[in-house]
């Protein structure tokens, strides 16, 4: 690889100006002629109830009302808002037991805020006023908020095909004994000198993306169903809507609007099915549906909360002999991603350390909470909270330094990655740990913070993580990219990859510019139109740069090959004897023999005849590059965070003093974008560790579905933070890049918990670690 010209540079992001000036067009900003407005009527009285009567009559009479829809007025087909089931084969879907269990409106309310009816009116206000007139009566049903509640033998069954309310467990066929496992765990524990074991709770964190759900749908005069949405996955949502409304894909069009943050909240469908149901009821009229924040909170998925038990065994010399774990997550009212997270939570566990044997069981239980699904890290933050605290408890008993132990026992090149049978092909975790330790003076501080007695106590803790770039080989990984070379030798890259603010349209453009060897400004990225773009799975699993970038690179290489072939014909030279510089193709060693890309591109389009000779000038045909790209691997990103905290032992308050994040990113295509991902990830990781949780009362009423009472870390809460980018190019990534979209959130979770452990000598087993819990734990420790 020669010197990189665009890759590695902090070029201007493609979206920055429009976002800063307010020019970016979000779905809520889109206005269409004749627009109608929808309002969904939700049950806010109960979390579990049967609708015994539904009276729409008063609403119908309200001013401005066009239609009022109950459960029977819309499609009766059930669906699954998640798109996971589209990423595996039909056979695999059967093995996993993925089911469709959602309906547009329900007469069996399964969570606070479940949808029962809707109004379409000429204004948002008219729709809201009419919605208030809809009267429902309910028969209350028992509320199940945890796996233990839902498991009760006499508990009401959410779905007949899921006995025991067990929505998912690792299927026997693919996972003998329903476990992701290697070795003989029970035998291995017998060899352990030290065993640590505990039961944890991981919290229901919300993505808190800035843009609440906003949608428009229109069933147009071509009998096409159009949907304007800021989904992360336009192509899969197109297919899902086609399936739900029994339309061919050519009759469903997704218009992706600017995405105001995703983090998984827009992975798959959210309110697209409902919005389309409204539009189908009023053909020819666009219907807009805007969620208030409180509603977005309850209708888009959250992180999977649940009980997470873990046991680890070590030999005296530190050898990790066995790890046994079980995650019982509180799935929420519908199936959605029940299979995905229950598996990956264990996959990240399996991918981290060289235990002689390991067994992980993952189970998803239906509960009367709002749904869970994808959230940045996809099970990894949960595992980090538990696994990393257990490792540190082990280290404490072993008398081992947590960094040294991790350096010795983490998996590396050649070891099985998160998917057993797919070994890691790159790993720079040792360098991450060394550089982070040095940056924060780990060794000195570990000594200094021993035996503190004051009211305020400092602590320093570390955590590591492995993740993935795309979900190959578990899930389909595929992106199609077209490159159109214009006659002025600029190029448009056309693909369906979305940019949810993570910067992917910028980095994909950099990959294109670098591959074509064109200036960055000569490239435009066209996205957002499912009619025009080929297949793409969508933005998830830290894949967009890795897989999308792979597709862009391959399609641009196709363009380059065509350019060189034509230059070879024109210059009467072998293509291998040519090189390009400043968009001019030269013959090696003959500086006067050259042809510009501009000439080739122009002649391809404007293929005129020479009036004197009657011959065509140059090679005909507009050059287009194409790639249908399936990545060869999943280029694992690794990372380490060291956190320093100060705990106030009289109030339990935690102040995060400093965070150092060192990540093996392969190659930073755009260092600013990478740092942005790590900063934002850390903000969410600290929130998961310390403040973020969705609370329900015993009746299942959500108590904090808004920013008034759900507290994230704000700018002034953030500590001093250093990001170290370890660039160790991955052999399979575009220019060596690995995915960094999710990595940043993960290790701050465990590192913060471990820093608190280091400061006060007690581990807090429930996330988030609030002052209330710390104080209680300190009291228990003092009383013991």
């Amino acid at each position, binding site marked *: 690889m020669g010197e990189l010209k665009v890759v590695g540079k902090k070029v201007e992001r493609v979206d920055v100006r429009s976002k800063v000036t307010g020019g970016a067009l979000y779905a809520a900003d889109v206005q269409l002629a004749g627009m109608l407005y929808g309002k969904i009527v939700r049950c806010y009285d109960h979390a579990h109830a049967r609708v015994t009567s539904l009276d729409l009559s008063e609403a119908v009479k309200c001013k401005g009302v066009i239609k009022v829809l109950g459960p029977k007025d819309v499609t009766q087909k059930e669906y699954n808002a998640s798109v996971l089931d589209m990423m595996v084969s039909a056979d695999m879907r059967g093995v996993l037991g993925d089911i469709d269990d959602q309906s547009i409106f329900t007469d069996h309310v399964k969570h606070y805020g479940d949808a029962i009816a809707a109004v379409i009116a000429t204004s948002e206000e008219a729709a809201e006023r009419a919605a208030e007139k809809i009267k429902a009566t309910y028969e209350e049903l028992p509320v199940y908020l945890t796996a233990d509640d839902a498991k009760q033998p006499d508990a009401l069954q959410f779905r007949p095909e899921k006995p025991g309310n067990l929505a998912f467990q690792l299927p026997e066929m693919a996972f003998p004994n329903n476990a992701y496992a290697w070795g003989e765990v029970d035998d291995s524990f017998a060899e352990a000198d030290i065993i640590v074991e505990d039961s944890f709770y991981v919290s229901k964190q919300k993505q808190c993306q800035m843009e609440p759900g906003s949608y428009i749908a229109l069933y147009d005069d071509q009998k096409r169903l159009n949907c304007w949405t800021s989904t992360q996955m336009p192509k899969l949502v197109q297919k899902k809507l086609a399936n739900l409304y029994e339309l061919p894909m050519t009759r469903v069009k997704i218009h992706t609007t600017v995405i105001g943050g995703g983090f998984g909240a827009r992975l798959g469908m959210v309110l697209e099915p409902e919005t389309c149901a409204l539009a189908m009821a009023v053909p020819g009229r666009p219907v807009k549906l805007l969620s208030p924040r*409180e509603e977005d909170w309850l209708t888009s998925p959250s992180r999977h909360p649940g009980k997470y038990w873990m046991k680890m065994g070590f030999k005296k010399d530190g050898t990790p002999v066995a790890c046994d774990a079980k995650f019982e997550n509180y799935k929420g009212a519908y199936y959605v991603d029940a299979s995905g997270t229950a598996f990956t939570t264990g996959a990240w566990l399996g991918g981290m350390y060289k235990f002689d044997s390991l067994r992980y069981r993952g189970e998803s239980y239906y509960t009367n909470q709002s749904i869970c699904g994808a959230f940045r890290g996809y099970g990894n933050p949960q595992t980090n909270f538990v696994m990393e605290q257990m490792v540190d408890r082990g280290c404490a008993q072993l008398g081992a330094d947590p960094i040294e132990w991790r350096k010795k026992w983490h998996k590396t090149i050649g070891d099985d990655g998160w998917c057993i049978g797919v070994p890691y092909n790159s790993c720079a975790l040792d360098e991450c740990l060394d550089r982070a330790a040095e940056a924060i003076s780990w060794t000195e501080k570990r000594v200094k913070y021993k035996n503190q007695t004051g009211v305020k106590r400092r602590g320093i803790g570390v955590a590591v993580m492995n993740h993935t770039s795309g979900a190959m080989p578990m899930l389909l990984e595929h992106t199609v990219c077209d490159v159109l070379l214009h006659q002025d030798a600029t190029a448009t890259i056309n693909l369906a990859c979305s940019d949810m603010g993570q910067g992917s349209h910028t980095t994909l453009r950099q990959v294109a510019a670098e591959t074509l060897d064109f200036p960055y400004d000569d490239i435009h990225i066209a996205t957002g139109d499912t009619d025009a773009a080929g297949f793409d799975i969508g933005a998830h699993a830290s894949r967009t740069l890795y897989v999308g970038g792979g597709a862009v690179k391959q399609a641009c290489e196709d363009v380059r090959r065509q350019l060189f072939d034509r230059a070879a014909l024109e210059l009467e030279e072998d293509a291998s004897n040519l090189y390009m510089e400043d968009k001019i193709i030269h013959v090696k060693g003959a500086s006067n023999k050259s042809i510009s890309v501009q000439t080739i591109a122009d002649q391809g389009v404007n293929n005129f005849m020479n009036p004197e000779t009657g011959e065509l000038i140059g090679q005909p045909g507009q050059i287009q590059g194409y790639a249908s790209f399936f990545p060869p691997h999943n280029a694992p990103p690794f990372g380490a965070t060291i956190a320093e905290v100060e705990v106030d032992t009289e109030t339990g308050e935690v102040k995060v003093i400093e965070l150092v994040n060192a990540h093996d990113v392969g190659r930073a295509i755009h260092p600013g974008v990478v740092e942005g991902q790590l900063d934002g990830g850390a903000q969410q990781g600290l929130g998961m560790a310390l403040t973020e949780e969705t609370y329900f009362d015993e009746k299942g009423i959500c108590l904090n579905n808004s920013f008034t009472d759900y507290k*994230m870390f704000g700018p002034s809460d953030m500590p001093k933070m250093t990001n170290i980018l370890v660039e160790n190019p991955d052999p399979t990534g575009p220019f060596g890049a690995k995915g960094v979209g999710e990595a940043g959130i993960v290790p701050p979770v465990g590192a913060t918990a471990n820093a608190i452990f280091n400061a006060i000598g007690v581990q807090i087993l429930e996330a988030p670690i609030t002052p209330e819990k710390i*104080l209680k734990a300190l009291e228990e420790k003092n009383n013991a």
Partner: protein
Amino acid sequence: MTSRVMRDFDLLLPESVAQAITLLATHKDKAAVLAGGTDLLVALKFDYDIDNVVSLALVPGLDVLEFDSERGLAIGAKVTIADLLKSSDVKEYYPALWQSAKVFATPQLRNTATVIGNILRASPAGDCSLAIYALGGILTLENATGRREVDLDDFWISYGVTARKDDELTISLQVPAPATGQKSAFRRMTRVTEDLSKLNAAVCLQMDGDECTGARVAMGCVGPTLIRLPKVENMLAGSVVTPELLQEISDTVASEINPIDDIRSSAEYRLKVAGVLVKRVIKLALNEGNDQ
């Protein structure tokens, strides 16, 4: 339960105090006064009784923020939290008030929210309200029959309820001038920086050398209204503030408060930590370090 639509109401824009009072007299409990609107607009979405909003935007004379060494600090009905922060008098003579303004919400909110609106909201968590409670304050209210003054000690009746009558406009607030040796401080605890208090405390100590001759100690988030802690005040009055006294005070606080469990914290935690907070805020007032 959730709404994106502000309900209909008439926005009334009086141009004098007299006009405002006439409007309040006409609409009584169907009207609300709009100052900064940071509480009112949130509540209005779901409050179907209020049809008339009487805005103070065009009423002159309500933005006085004036310090006089005899009369103390006069705060007009339109004075914002940000105005307090800009005042060197507030910073010098009423540290508790200045500290409460400093941590209050966010810059946008501080530019809009008024001090008097905070008091009228009668929230048990109000930050500036709490500081003023400790410093002492007298409100001037006016209706068609004239003006009256109400001591803050008699103003908050229960959660969200005050001694203000429906037709009264709050004109201003007077905080007494500090005598020599007055020391005050405010401190709050929140889940994250930008949050409503889960526990807050303010003290105003009259010091004569090492001896405290009188004290007002107030706490928030420990009952339906902001409260004062008479036992603690008595323990301080006439005493030298020693570490032992502080410890005794810290142990006493729990017996004077009646907190509940809510989304921001638990009764148990508040009972445990309130004493620590009061101890620290006293030390802060005495300039003995700002934390422990």
